[in-house]
């Protein structure tokens, strides 16, 4: 049995090697545009993830937020959705020299939670952690020091503020052109995706169609431009099975088109994240914390007490 497997691996490798001579663009399958599983696996391993700032959280996500995938993150107000969104918009910009993607971010703010001073604070926190982790590196690299300024991180975010659902549709439709012109964007964050759709709509079927259309569009964008799409969502209470349960807003109409789903919740006084849906990872949960530097690992098992000034 082992021999057969070795033979198969050998054939696949040879096939892959042969294709390298022909040129990287050449499709290796019978159908144009098809990839064999081996290519897909190597590509998947080359793809980087965007760190969330918390190594525990990265752990349950399989390294971080994945490019080419849509991740939905839901939670109650104050649990840290926007904090995580901003952290990802900063972390995507970590230069490749320091293990990041060196990309830019698109941040679509539908609620007005994007506070620039907090973004600056999180950028400073990220830089200070990089300097701590790479104490000698930035001396060697000539351009390294210049890159690590919070101002640069702020300028690396394309910020759209939208005030209605029509503006939201317009921005998402516009993204295709925008991303074609700004190929360095590696993450698109929408905070939050359902806010403007929770008003009373006369035609609920239309709302469902619009939301499904938006999510399909975003999925296609993530694959076409090899970027991560992160959709922050609110939670609502739903009366199911005789009790009130917390569920993601408008979940029935559109949520199924997300590749991954992360739920942020409170466990006593501690923040926790629960991976609810993933194509390849098991469901798992972990605590995390929101500090002045941004999203980080939970410090100690002790609960966080409110500081009296």
């Amino acid at each position, binding site marked *: 049995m082992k021999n057969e497997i070795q033979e198969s691996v050998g054939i696949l490798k040879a096939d892959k090697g042969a294709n390298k001579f022909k040129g990287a663009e050449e499709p290796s399958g019978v159908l144009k545009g098809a990839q064999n599983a081996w290519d897909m696996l190597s590509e998947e391993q080359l793809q980087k993830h965007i760190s969330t700032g918390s190594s525990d959280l990265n752990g349950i996500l399989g390294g971080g937020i994945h490019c080419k995938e849509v991740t939905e993150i839901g939670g*109650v*107000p*104050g*649990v840290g959705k*926007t*904090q995580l969104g901003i952290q990802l918009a900063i972390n995507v910009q970590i230069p490749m020299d320091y293990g990041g993607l060196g990309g830019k971010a*698109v941040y679509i703010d539908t*609620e*007005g*939670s*994007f*506070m*620039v*001073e*907090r*973004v*600056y604070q999180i950028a400073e926190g990220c830089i200070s952690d990089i300097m701590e982790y790479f104490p000698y590196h930035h001396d060697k690299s000539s351009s390294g020091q210049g890159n690590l300024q919070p*101002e640069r991180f*702020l*300028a690396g*975010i*394309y*910020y*759209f*503020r*939208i*005030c*209605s659902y029509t*503006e939201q549709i*317009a*921005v998402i439709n*516009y993204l295709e*052109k*925008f991303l074609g012109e700004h190929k360095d964007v590696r993450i698109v964050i929408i905070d939050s995706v359902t*806010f*403007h759709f*929770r*008003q*009373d709509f006369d035609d609920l079927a239309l709302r469902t169609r619009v939301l499904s259309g938006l999510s399909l569009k975003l999925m296609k964008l993530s694959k076409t431009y090899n970027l991560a799409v992160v959709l922050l969502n*609110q*939670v*609502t*209470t739903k*009366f199911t099975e005789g009790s009130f349960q917390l569920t993601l*807003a408008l979940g029935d109409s559109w949520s199924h088109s997300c590749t991954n789903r992360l739920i942020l919740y*409170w*466990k*006593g*006084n501690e923040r926790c994240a629960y991976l609810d849906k993933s194509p390849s990872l098991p469901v798992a949960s972990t605590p995390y914390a929101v500090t*002045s530097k941004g999203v980080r690992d939970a410090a100690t098992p002790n609960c*966080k007490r*409110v*500081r*009296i*000034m």
Partner: protein
Amino acid sequence: MRPPAAKPLVATTTSSSSSYNQHEPRPENPLLLLASSRAAKLSLGCPLLDRLLSGGLPAASVTEIAGESASGKTQICLQLALLAPLSPLSSSSLFLCSDLPFPLRRLRLLAPKSHPDLLDHVFVAAVHSPSDLLSLLSRAQHHLSHPTHSPHRLPTRVILLDSIASLFRADFDASPADLKRRTGLFFKISAKLKELAYRHKCVVVVTNQVVDVVEGNTGNTMAWSSGRQVSPALGLSWANCVNTRLFLTREVGSDGGSTRRHMKVAFAPHLPERACEFVIRRDGVFGVEPAQR
């Protein structure tokens, strides 16, 4: 005296530019927003409370102040209305009052003797229902987009709503259809307030009452006040509609009789969860150090 320069509308999604089509959405650069964001804060008139809020209440954002009755919510709103004209925002206030009658006498008492004309910059409108509020906000939007130029008229950049909870007391039963309609109105009102806040760089403050909670909610939704567990009214749906939530709590002191009050940051995108003790005096609401009482 020259009339104040017309404040230009904040760059909306359809501003023209060399490389962008006029009708295409246009991204902003957060770096360029940093200085103005830091400056556009409405101070509470007390350095301790301002420190709790990292400078004051932010513009382009909806801040909720929740607390029991007589916890200081209205007092703070009146105080803000009187501070706005002399602050760097240099603005007049629109006070939307649903808890009628409007406390005019208290406002008069709060106004410092040195600036008797501060009341000229407080505009009060009575609000009787959610639809009333929505039409008022539409009119306010129109008014803010077409400011009148007059030497004494400051631009309106502070909007205070006292309170959101009283608007929803009547007219709604507990039927699922009504609850759904109520939730829809929360989001409609919030979207309108946020749009006003963003397009005209306004500070928006909404007060809310509290309700008793039976079972312990986790995290930041509840607090102890006057010996009971309370949570802001209007539930999780409304909580999703505000950017910042401040909680005013009240405890009877252990030495018996003396009341201690705290302003607590329940959640905010830019603030850590912390609290500050405060007192309500005749001349306003002020923070106190924990040591001094």
